């Protein structure tokens, strides 16, 4: 299959040996071919072999394995808590990630994580170009997988082109039905795996098997099957080019010193056929064989320079290196390089890489800062918490003896997985009485029992005697203390006397 492309050399090139590697292909998505409105032209990427293709296979297997396996990792959290390592528990409003448990009010961890991811993406882009797009973006991974399936069923590039042009005979129908069925199965598995992140995986599997999984689970599976099939199988490079904002953002994130898949035009130009036996010079190494164009899943010609459509998947590097080996030239006519280096070499200067630049320093600093803050807050996070909301209606209550009462809604959080008794104290005023509804009156700190992993809502009433009333608002402080661990948290509030 691989050799089929080599059967028909381009006209006029038959006399040259190197010309026999050449295939007749044009970049469907090159800037020159672009119109303001044009129906999609199918792209038939040619399978390549080489280092980057191998790396991509490995990354694909790794990322898919992580995606499919993660929901099945068990993690013992004791009775009453889910035993799944990674779980978004929407019903109980908890997010579990191994030893971390996040409550809804701690959503800022998610915000922090998103900021970290964004800055990391900026940094990686400034250093190594679109590494994310080329290797680990789900769109790339699944498109790659779908193209691999296509290749297995319909054959390589030339066979697929022939099949597309062929009438709808038995062979075509069989191959197409087979291909789309396999695609749909992969899509179904993808959508199926997603819902396991939101419910206990083994239990949900049983529910699916018995046909009484919740409607939302079926809906989610259906929707994700549809998107995986259509985005990865049918739309492919259009998602990257038209739907994804990243190609636009990356223009601001990258510069001439960022590594990207580069055609070294200083070495390749002027391109053209090379007659066998003639000596090679330092330039003109591009024999214009179009293998890089045939390999490109985005339908571009890398020799046109860095462009919006290029996801830096490096498949053209493998394709070109293969040809360079065959014609006896050093590899790397297309390679990870920088635009600045190409210009340096064109000026006769030696090439070098500048990884330390103002923007990479800035991104690294932000990354370290946000990461450090996140780690600190996660590490220093209390296993208890208190929220106090003062009554506003009425703001204060005058008692029959002239004393003044203020009411508060207090929520005491117990993050730990065991029931605990806390002590509640209020300081900052002279209170004749501190009453907690539902807790017998005691002298001193009020004992508050809270069930494991729960929030207990309390109503707290503070009374100040007439003689102790201070004008206006008094700053007071609620404190909750775990006598066992000596952990304590405080929060401020006010006591309104009603006096001016």
């Amino acid at each position: 299959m691989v050799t089929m492309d080599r059967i028909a050399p381009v006209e006029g090139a038959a006399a040259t040996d190197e010309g026999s590697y050449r295939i007749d292909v044009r970049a469907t998505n090159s800037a020159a071919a672009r119109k303001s409105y044009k129906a999609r032209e199918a792209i038939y990427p040619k399978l390549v072999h080489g280092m980057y293709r191998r790396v991509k296979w490995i990354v694909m297997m790794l990322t898919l394995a992580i995606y499919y396996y993660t929901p099945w990792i068990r993690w013992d959290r004791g009775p009453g808590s889910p035993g799944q390592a990674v779980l978004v528990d929407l019903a109980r409003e908890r997010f579990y990630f191994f030893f971390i448990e996040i409550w809804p009010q701690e959503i800022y961890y998610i915000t922090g994580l998103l900021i970290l991811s964004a800055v990391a993406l900026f940094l990686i882009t400034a250093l190594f170009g679109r590494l994310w797009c080329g290797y680990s973006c789900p769109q790339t991974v699944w498109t790659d997988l779908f193209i691999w399936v296509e290749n297995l069923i319909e054959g390589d590039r030339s066979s697929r082109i022939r099949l597309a042009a062929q009438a709808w005979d038995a062979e075509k129908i069989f191959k197409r039905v087979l291909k789309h069925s396999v695609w749909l199965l992969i899509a179904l598995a993808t959508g199926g795996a997603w819902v396991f992140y939101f419910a206990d995986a083994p239990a949900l599997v049983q529910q699916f098997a018995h046909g009484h999984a919740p409607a939302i689970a079926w809906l989610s599976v259906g929707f994700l099957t549809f998107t995986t099939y259509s985005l990865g199988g049918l739309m492919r490079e259009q998602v990257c080019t038209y739907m994804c904002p990243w190609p636009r953002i990356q223009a601001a994130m990258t510069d001439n010193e960022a590594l990207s898949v580069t055609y070294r035009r200083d070495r390749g130009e002027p391109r053209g056929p090379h007659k066998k036996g003639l000596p090679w010079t330092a330039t003109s190494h591009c024999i214009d064989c179009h293998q890089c164009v045939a390999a490109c899943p985005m339908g571009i010609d890398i020799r046109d320079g860095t462009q919006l459509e290029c996801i830096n998947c490096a498949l053209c590097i493998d394709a070109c290196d293969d040809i360079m080996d065959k014609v006896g030239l050093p590899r790397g006519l297309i390679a990870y390089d920088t635009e600045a280096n190409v210009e340096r070499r064109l000026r006769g200067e030696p090439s070098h890489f500048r990884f330390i630049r103002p923007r990479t320093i800035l991104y690294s600093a932000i990354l370290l800062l946000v990461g450090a803050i996140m780690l600190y807050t996660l590490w220093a996070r209390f296993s208890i918490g208190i929220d106090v909301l003062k009554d506003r209606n009425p703001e204060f209550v005058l008692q029959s003896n002239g004393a003044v009462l203020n009411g508060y809604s207090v929520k005491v959080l117990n993050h730990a997985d065991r029931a605990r008794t806390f002590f509640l104290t209020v300081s900052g005023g002279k209170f004749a009485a501190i009453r907690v509804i539902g807790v017998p009156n005691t002298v001193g700190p009020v004992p508050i029992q809270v069930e494991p992993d729960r929030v207990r809502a309390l109503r707290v009433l503070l009374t100040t005697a007439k003689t102790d009333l201070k004008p206006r608002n008094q700053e007071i402080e609620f404190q909750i203390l775990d006598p066992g661990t000596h952990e304590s948290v405080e929060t401020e509030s006010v006591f309104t006397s009603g006096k001016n």
Partner: protein
Amino acid sequence: MSSKEKDPHSGTDTTGHVWDGIKELNTPLPRWWLVVFYATIVWAFAYWIFMPAWPTLSGYTHGLLDHSQRADVATAINELKAQRHAHESELGRASLQQIQNDPDLQQFAMAEGRSLFGDNCAPCHGSGGQGALGYPNLNDDVWLWGGKLEDIQHTITVGVRSTNADARQSQMPAFGHDKILKDSQIDDLTEYVVAISGRVANAVAVRRASKLFADNCAACHGAKGLGDRAMGAPNLTDTDWLYGSTRAEIRNQIWNGHGGVMPTWSGRLTPEEIKSLAVYVHSLGGGE
């Protein structure tokens, strides 16, 4: 009219329409757009068939699915009731004190009580139970008919001067309006009430009124004016005034003998709901 042809510049077919020598190019809508458009038409017909769509003389077409939002609401309410059933029946069994001391049950009762209060009580007692002139404040420690959980539960159940046979009953005479006392006597009594509530008053008038108070008021308000919860008679010596603390307001009350009415809630609310309300009102601040 000219025939259809290919436009030499754009390579596109013309529609065949020509005006003043200007030919119209045939640039149809994108196919996906057209498909969506046709799909919406199909959708509309399907909707007519499956969903309620057309009015008829006496009703409407129900559609094959016989969908009804009213039925959906009824179902949702029944589901909610079923969901709350466990807690509600527990409320029915537990005593008020047990409800208050069980964190889980208390939280449920408080939540239900808060919403019931907003729906049923807030119009008179205020959204925070802070009361108004003539409507008691439920946050303070002053109670006409008692501030224990059971007292509150009973008041809510039977009401005050309501249609319920067991209602909390008492009636202050309208001493002026019904000509029981003379204007001057009412003036003296006003001074007396001002005096026993710890304020400066006309000593001569107070002395004149002390017998009047013993004869007319002490039966309900007590010899010292401390009030009587059995009669719902307010304490006249504290800082709390249902109908106002100024001389004019006190005089007005003696003249007219206002007595507020609170409806009976038995029959309107279930016993469980009344329990929740009692726990909620008790927690506002004044509960005994």
